[in-house]
């Protein structure tokens, strides 16, 4: 009995001072800068577009092979290739701004000062809704791993970014930790407006015939449906540990997946690897959420947040 998306259905969620038109965001590094997917998804139709991680200076990224498929997932070791903040502001941001998309800029640095400088730079630009602080990318020796696996350092980065900019700050957590709740609490105490999780799980693949690693970088980040159970567990644990909103990420490919994360306590979700499998995945999930609300006769998607029945 699911009719077309009814106009009474309310998909809006509030997060870090923003009101998103729906809880479905594109995850950093999987959606480019919106333009790459514009034939399939109008970026302004999404809750937000989180752009590929931006650093102060341009980075060339890792040598190939950079990706390898694994069972129901993939490993990537892109190495945070990006044009640097200047290139982003002049060549990437304008498209999204002109389309009226809600833009979240994922930032990364090698030291606390890098993050602060990036935050200051981006706060001065028009058309940016929030920052997402990537303290979790496991691919780069400096930065990534260290910040994301130590609560003290994570808090320090969070404070520096908050101090440097008036934009809402989302801190993106790494799953490669013993105690995700402790990490969530640390960045909340340091002033984060929201947290997003999970980034990729650190993994590896080997070619049995050549005896070589399948990634030039040896290790890489595991993403896709394979990691969904771990992501969902961490979102549930983090959401119970903090009062700030949580954005769920990890293996989300369908509206049912998105509902699972909302029930576990997420206020919004990000879709990553699924964009590669189905370029319209984000739109399909938005439509599917409306259908879910209609079927279950729920007036607003916000009713689902944390509504897991234990």
């Amino acid at each position, binding site marked *: 009995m699911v009719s077309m998306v009814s106009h009474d259905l309310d998909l809006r969620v509030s997060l870090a001072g923003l009101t998103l038109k729906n809880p479905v965001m594109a995850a950093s590094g999987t959606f480019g800068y919106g333009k*790459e997917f514009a034939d399939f998804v109008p970026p302004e139709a999404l809750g937000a577009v989180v752009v590929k991680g931006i650093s102060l200076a341009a980075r060339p*990224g890792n040598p*190939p092979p*950079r990706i*390898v498929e694994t069972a129901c997932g993939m490993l*990537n070791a892109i190495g945070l290739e990006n044009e640097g903040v200047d290139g982003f502001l002049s060549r990437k941001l304008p498209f999204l701004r002109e389309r009226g998309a809600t833009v979240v800029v994922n930032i990364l640095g090698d030291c606390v000062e890098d993050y602060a400088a990036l935050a200051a730079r981006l706060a001065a630009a028009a058309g940016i809704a929030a920052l997402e602080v990537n303290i979790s990318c496991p691919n780069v020796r400096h930065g990534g791993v260290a910040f994301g696996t130590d609560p003290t350092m994570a808090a320090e980065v969070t404070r520096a970014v908050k101090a440097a900019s008036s934009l809402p700050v989302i801190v993106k957590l790494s799953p490669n930790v013993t105690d995700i709740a402790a990490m969530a609490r640390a960045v909340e105490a340091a002033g984060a407006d929201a947290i997003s999780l999970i980034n990729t799980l650190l993994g590896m693949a080997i070619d049995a015939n050549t005896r070589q690693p399948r990634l030039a970088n040896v290790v890489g980040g595991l993403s*896709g449906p394979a990691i969904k159970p771990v992501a969902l567990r961490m979102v549930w644990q983090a959401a119970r540990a903090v009062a700030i909103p949580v954005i769920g990420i990890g293996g989300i490919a369908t509206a049912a997946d998105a509902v699972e994360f909302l029930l576990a306590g997420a206020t919004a979700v990000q879709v990553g*690897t699924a964009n*590669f499998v189905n*370029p319209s995945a984000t739109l399909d999930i938005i439509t599917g959420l409306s259908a879910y609300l209609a079927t279950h006769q729920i007036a607003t998607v916000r009713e689902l947040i944390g509504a897991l029945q234990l």
Partner: protein
Amino acid sequence: MMARYQLSATVTARPQVTGDIVRLALLAPAVSQAATPGQFVMVRSAVALDPLLRRPFSVCRVNGDGTLEILVKVIGQGTRGLAALKVGDQVDLLGPLGHGFVMPDQGRACLVGGGIGAAPLLFLAQKLGERLPASDIQVLLGARTGAEAMALALPFRDLGLPVQLATDDGTAGHHGLVGELLAALTSGAFPTQVYACGPHPMLAAVARISTDRGWPCQVSTEAIMACGLGACLGCAVPRNGGRGYLHVCKQGPVFEAGELQW
């Protein structure tokens, strides 16, 4: 940017080309019409999540009936699944993608293919044939065996093009590498443009020969891909001169040989 489509395409034919290569004809009028030689499509046949990612295939021919054809060589799980498709089955198709061959309006073209690398060259030959006299289009194909070489050469010959063969086992044409056929061209047959597609060592040889002789050379390259849309940055290949990377799905798959580090 050209329009790109994601659609469900029906398999309308699947002749076996060689022991491990099948040709799939896919009904996808929009993609078939938009594609230019050297572009590729990404295909997925699984209803389940394994294998997860699409697989890239060069468009090897487009037909007036709205179908496009790809050649699928069985390598691993993904290609095994595609080769097992039957007429009437559906695949999920994304394309046309990437930057294809730049075609001249005059001069002599030489198409050099290694094995399954013949795929994009066939579409190229089809379109070049509309611009150049057949006598100005040379095709050099390398393969493991004579049987494979003949099977790959057949559609080029059907276009009325002369094809020279090289085989690893010497059972047809030149016993040796296809690059050697290129190197052996005599001055009357010198190309004004070389087009190559095949395994990396073959491309490197063709690029070197072409550079040595001053022939412009376009190569169609491969990389493992996730998105095919320029978003994931997975399909990097080193740029010539050590200045970072190019991305096969967007700036390629066809590059000027000089753009790449060999």
